[in-house]
Every structure is written in C-alpha cells, then in structure tokens.
C-alpha cells in the first residue's frame, strides 16, 4: 500500500479502481500543511476519478507518474511518500489496465 501495510486482494480486482480508492484515502488523510501532499494527492485523485469514469486520456497516466515522483521525497512527513508509492508501482505493474480505461475500452460500472 506504500506505507508498508499489506492488503490481500482477489486477482479479479479492478486495479484502477483500487488505486483511486487508495489515493482518495491519502487525499482525505493529508493534513494540508506541506504543498506537494496537499495539492498533489487531491490532483492525483481527480485524475484517477476521471480515468475511471471514462473521461481520461492516455497522457494522464504519465502525468500521474510524474506527479507521484514530484510528491515522493519532497514532503514534510512520510504520508506523501506513502501516497506516491502505490501510484508509481500500480502503473508500473498494471499499465495495460490503465491504458484500457484511457482508451475507453473499459469503463467503471
């Protein structure tokens, strides 16, 4: 999950939706003190929500990775690092699923 916690999930789980849910959690938990975490988590959550609802584009995937890289290692506490971790690793491991959403081949019910 980025923070060292482990979640066991079914192999049929929608990874885009899961990443959105995780990012939403971090956006909600962000205290709002430091800039990258306050602005970045909400931004990533917004992009993932767009992707999930079929309004995303392929460039959003690279933007997500870039934003996560910009948050990681630059925040006041470790919450920002924890928020950036899943975004980077999810997209690295499950990129085709994200691309399917971006191309409109898949849409969240």
């Amino acid at each position: 999950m980025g923070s060292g916690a482990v979640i066991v999930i079914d192999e049929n789980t929608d990874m885009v939706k899961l990443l959105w849910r995780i990012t939403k959690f971090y956006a909600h938990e962000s205290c709002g003190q430091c800039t990258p975490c306050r602005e970045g988590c909400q931004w990533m959550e917004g992009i993932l929500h767009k992707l999930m609802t079929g309004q995303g584009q392929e460039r959003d995937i690279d933007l997500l990775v870039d934003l996560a890289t910009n948050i990681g290692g630059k925040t006041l506490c470790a919450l920002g690092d924890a928020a950036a971790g899943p975004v980077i690793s999810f997209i690295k491991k499950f990129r085709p699923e994200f691309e399917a959403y971006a191309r409109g081949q898949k849409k969240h019910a």
Partner: protein
Amino acid sequence: MPKCTIDGNEVEFEKGENLIKVAKRAGVDIPVFCYHPGLSVVAQCRMCLVEIEKMPKLQTACSTPAGEGMIVRTQANAAVKGRAATMEFLLANHPLDCPICDKSGECDLQDNSFTHGSATMRTTEERRTYVDVDMGPVIQKNMNRCIHCTRCIRFGDEVAGIREMVSIQRGNMLDITTIDGLPLATEYAGNYADICPTGALTLKDFRFKKRAWFLKKTETICEGCSKGCNMEVHHEAGTVYRCLPRYNPQINQYWLCDEGRFNYHHTQDPQRIVEVDWSDSAPTAFQQLKQAKNPLFLIGTDLCLEEMKTILDFAKATAANAQIAHFGTPGVLTSKDDAPEDKILKRTSKTSNLNGAESLGIKPFDSKITNDLVIVFRGGRAVLPQSLKQQDAKKIVAVGVFRIGDLPSETTVLPGLAFTEKSGTIVNFEGTQQKLKKAVPGPRNSKPISEILMIMTQAKKGSVVTPGIGVA
C-alpha cells in the same frame, strides 16, 4: 568560523544559522514562501528545496542549519526540478487572477513562478474555491489565492501576541481563517498583508488604488509615536498611497502598527487648511507678534529638530521676552511620562519628537494661558491644548498643519508641511536620531516653517509671495 560551500562559493557562518541566511550572504537567492526571517520556521511550502551532498533527499534550506564542510547545490538538476514541482502544485489551485489582484507586481508567488516555475500548466481539474469571511476594517481576504504558508498564523501567535488566525479543515480543503470567523482584533493587522506572499490578505485601504509598480518609495520614519519605527512611504505624482514598515533590527524589526501605517491620511484630509493670503496674513501676524507684551510660543513635539531650532532662533531674535513651551500628547508632559503602550511597538507619547524638544531645552506647556498672544507651531499630529481652543481667535497665530475646527474659526493659519512633505531629524524615546525624508511636495500654498518665518519678517503688506520661492 566554520565554513560551508554554496553553489561553489565558500561562505562563513555562525552556528545555528539556516542555509537561506548563509546563502544570501554568498549571493545566492533561495526562493521562499513560508519562511520569514521574523517568524519561526515550519518548512511547509517546500519551495526552498536544495541538494546537499551526502544527503539522499532534497532538503529545505529554511529548516537546515549550515554545517561545517557542507556542500550545497541550489542549481542541481534535482533541486531545480523539485522547486518547479512545488511551483506547479502551488499554482494547481491558484486562481491566477493577477490582472485584478492588488499584490500583482510585488507578489512572491508571481516572482518565484517566473523564475522557478513553468510557463504551462497540466491541470484540467476544477479549481478549489472558498467562501470568504469579513476580516474587519483593515484586511481584505481572498482565500482562493492563499497558498497555505501560515505566515499569518505565526505572525499573530509570535509577534502580535494574539492567536486569531487559524487553519481549519485539512488536506486540500485546508482553510486559513479567523477563529469563529470574527474580524481581526489586533492593532497590527496591516502586517498580515505585508507578510502574505500572495494576494490572499490585502489592505482594504490600498485596494484598487494603485498598481505596485507605479509607486515610488521614500524611506522615512513614522511620526505616530516616540518609538520612531522605520517606514517606507509609497507615493506617485505627489500623492501618498500607503506606508509600509522598513526593516530596522533595533527598533521595529519588520513590523508597523495600524495607527502609524494609516496616520498619513491626516495629510490628505479635505479639512486641512492649505489656503492663505501670504501677502496679508504673514505681515499682519508679525505685526501682532511685535506688539505683544508677553507672547507664548507653543511648539508641537511633532516637529523636527531643525524646525524647533529655527523657531527658537526666531523667538530669540524677534520676541526676547517670549515664553516658550512644547505640547504633544495630553498626560505625557515629559519623556518620563512616556511608556510602552503595549508589548510590541506602540508608546504613549503620540508625537515623534518629544525627546528632541527636551534636548533643545524646551519646557512642557502647563495648560494655563495668561499671554496676550499665542503663536502655535504644529506638524499635524500633536494634540492642541484645550485651553488654546477657548482663547480669543485674535490672540492666536497658527503655523503648520491644522484642520478646520481645530482652532477658533477666525484664527490666522499659515499652512505648513506634514511629515511626508518635509525632511528633518527626530529623536526617538531611546535618544536615537533618525531622518525624515521628503516624499511628496505638499499642498501648493503650504511652506516649510523656516520659509514661513522668513516671509513673516520680510514681507510687507501687499507684496507678492510666490509659492516655493518666498518674497519677491
């Protein structure tokens, strides 16, 4: 002294100094938002990221004390990229309404974005908006522009001594506001606008009046009380638009009280008496003085040393038997009565030069007038004695800055210059001599006291007195 290297420049530092201060000495400017030299360090904005050798992550220069042998690179790729990222995050929800923002032209967000940010944006999301609360008569709030640096919260806490600004909510909806949405109570509220790095907190007084880049700046001293705070008068085409504090580590540091900040308004009062027929009033007043048996010279402690000395010399030469006294603040007769009014800047003597008057040996006015003529000199701020207002107008000659209604209506007023309109020396409560500097020319018919006295002695009835020159 220990040394460290910043961008290739070796620089000495004192133990405990942070990298921003050290870098400044090395000629390297590190951009900041939340850091303010007069406030505590929170390292929240992440704008001052720098690369330090042997440290895995970028560090914030504001919260990192310099260390012996430390090698800092502000222009390393990672640091440049990190700052650009911070800039992008800060602008992701900023309205970018610079064309209608009062801070435009002197905005840290604008400047740093220009230097360290990118010209393009990658956001397509709707921007965050807030509902604003009324912050009282001094400060206008526009929360949409806020970058959550919390300088205002820390200023209230650490300098003004009142915790009235707080952050509520959290995460992306973090809101900086007053407790319970109440108006600001501090008498130092103007500083909130000064320290705000964006246009989130601006002065209602200065709002929409002038673009920052048109303003000319003159360094002068506040005449509001005996503290002698250093300030900067911002003016254009002969009109003063605002006064801002000027850094002086011994006296006021970075701050200025609202009383001093808005004191300049009295110089623009439509009730200020600025019209006079010099060729008639001045010689008549001099005649009155010549005929008086025991004239009283009342000198306001809001005048400069130079003006006081001129008046003393004039009194010596023209009316040797004159009684001379100073007036300023009711209840504060000598510098012994002058005390701090609060724990920050204000003092009880509401004129700037009480100590100067004492150093010239002028005695305080004891409120009884038994003289057949009173000639009163005033710079605009000294409170006129009550007994003077009850005098017969024919027995008063007023020189300096007066408003209609200050004195009996028939009184002869020879209009002088206010503190923004003249240069001179004032002495503050500690005995520090500081210079007033002329910022604006003053009303057309007003003259410096030295010139007024010269016209009085030299002009004959009906002679031509031209503005700014004297007697022709």
